[in-house]
């Protein structure tokens, strides 16, 4: 394991510290307990958005803190959800009285820790709503699992709900929009290589030189099944098919197409995947009205990608286009 780190146990501390130094115009880093807030938090009268989860998915979530998106992000240890004693003060720090929406990726750990923090916040008089993101179609039998995971779609939920909060929507409205984004987005991912959690020191799974993992999450866990390496177009077909079927995308639909890198895949390859995905959508008669390509929800240095499709309506498109000013997404400002 070769990494640009000093000590596996200080990775998150030092990285978040560096992040705060590099983006001091946008965020404030609170070191102990650790969380990151928008520089101007709490924003009076605005509903606040708080998200968080294990580290190792950068820029998710701290990279999305700022105007038009998150008010706070709570980073846990690598691939380990943060604890209530981080989530609670983050929630309190950004609440202006208008209430706080917790955006939680559906993993047992995230759900339990955010649940506890939300209860404690409610007890302190903060109005908290929680929205679970569960966009991963790789998890098929949700009856026999912990349910669909929250993966790439999280960025889209955070951007669109963040814009709704910024324009002055109420707590109920922001919650409803976040839930509506979640119901209209699906994702599926592939890994060409594993990643190495710093404190573990060995790759998260072993993959032969000609094998890939289909249906991975974002924690370096193995996927649903392992297949032989295939050309990018064939892999794209495998990922996008279930996404479109599950969403029921049909002729005339407008969509946002999001090709997300897992961290170690060059951008050029993401565009090769995008190219094929665009052709498939065109075949289905869907119009790609918006797009996003890059490393946004990563698994450390894993090679691979995920494809997300969000069914757009006019409100989603407007909110997507609304100004955003964060370290990792910025436009209109």
């Amino acid at each position: 394991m070769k990494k640009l780190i000093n000590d596996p146990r200080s990775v998150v501390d030092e990285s978040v510290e560096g992040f705060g130094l590099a983006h001091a115009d946008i965020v404030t880093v609170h070191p102990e307990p650790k969380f990151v807030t928008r520089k101007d938090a709490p924003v009076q009268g605005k509903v606040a958005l708080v998200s968080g989860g294990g580290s190792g998915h950068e820029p998710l979530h701290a990279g999305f803190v700022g105007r038009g998106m998150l008010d706070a992000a709570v980073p846990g240890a690598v691939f380990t959800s943060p604890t209530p004693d981080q989530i609670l003060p983050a929630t309190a720090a950004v609440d202006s009285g208008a209430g706080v929406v917790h955006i939680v990726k559906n993993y047992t750990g995230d759900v339990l820790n955010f649940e506890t923090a939300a209860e404690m916040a409610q007890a302190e008089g903060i109005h908290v709503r929680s929205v679970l993101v569960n966009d991963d179609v790789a998890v098929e039998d949700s009856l026999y699992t912990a349910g669909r995971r929250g993966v790439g779609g999280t960025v889209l939920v955070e951007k669109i709900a963040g814009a709704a909060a910024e324009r002055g929507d109420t707590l109920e409205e922001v919650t409803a929009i976040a839930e509506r984004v979640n119901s209209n987005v699906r994702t599926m991912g592939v890994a060409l290589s594993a990643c190495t959690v710093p404190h573990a020191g060995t790759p998260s799974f072993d993959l032969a030189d000609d094998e890939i993992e289909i249906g991975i999450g974002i924690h370096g866990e193995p996927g649903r099944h392992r297949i032989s390496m295939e050309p990018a177009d064939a892999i794209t077909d495998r990922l996008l098919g279930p996404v479109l079927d599950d969403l029921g995308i049909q002729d005339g639909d407008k969509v946002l197409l999001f090709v997300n890198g897992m961290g170690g895949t060059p951008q050029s390859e993401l565009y090769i995947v995008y190219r094929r995905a665009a052709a498939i959508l065109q075949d289905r008669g869907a119009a790609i009205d918006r797009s996003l390509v890059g490393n946004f929800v990563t698994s450390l240095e894993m090679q691979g990608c995920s494809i997300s499709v969000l069914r757009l309506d006019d409100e989603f498109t407007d909110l997507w286009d609304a100004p955003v000013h964060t370290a990792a997404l910025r436009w209109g400002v």
Partner: protein
Amino acid sequence: MVLDVQWAIAWLTLSAKAMTEHREELIELDRAIGDSDHGENMDRGFQAVVAKLAETPPETPGAALKLAAMALMSKVGGAAGPLYGTAYLRAATSMGDATELDGGALATALEAARDGIVARGKAELGDKTMVDAWSPAVEAAQAAAVDGPGPVLRAAAEAAAAGAVATDPLVARKGRASYLGERSAGHRDPGAASTALLLKAAADAAGETLPESPE
């Protein structure tokens, strides 16, 4: 024979030792069907428990477990943090202000812990989670309650160890391993394995010598 706060402190101290010693083994188990962090999380959490114990020495077993619950809740994170946190908190509540615990009180505390985990995590027996170690432990403890705390802990530890081994062939239905579907079979659940280690530490703290743990 009864167990007091010294036993509780010894239990938690031995637990921390066990988590450090088995850190890599638990990471390796979690690597196979999870995300490679369970050993790291538990080790970090129990180091915090030990630090807190030194800071504010508790006066009752219940206080010791409550302190542990708080430290675990705030330092472990992931799924295991809230689950063990709840377990230790419920156990602490069930112990109340008692300074000494007999076999019955211990069995009841273990049951409260297990019920807390089930209440939070909604896992059923056979879902390949830590519940598969806790549940047999609780049953064995209840059966041994009349024999006193030593035998209770010994029975619980043995049953938990067997329960952890028994998760090997199961297909996970809760937690991160459930995403693997059938591929989760053939691996031991890391949370069940850590539970077995923690209950062994409890028995060790009471001076019980256990047979070699099953493989």
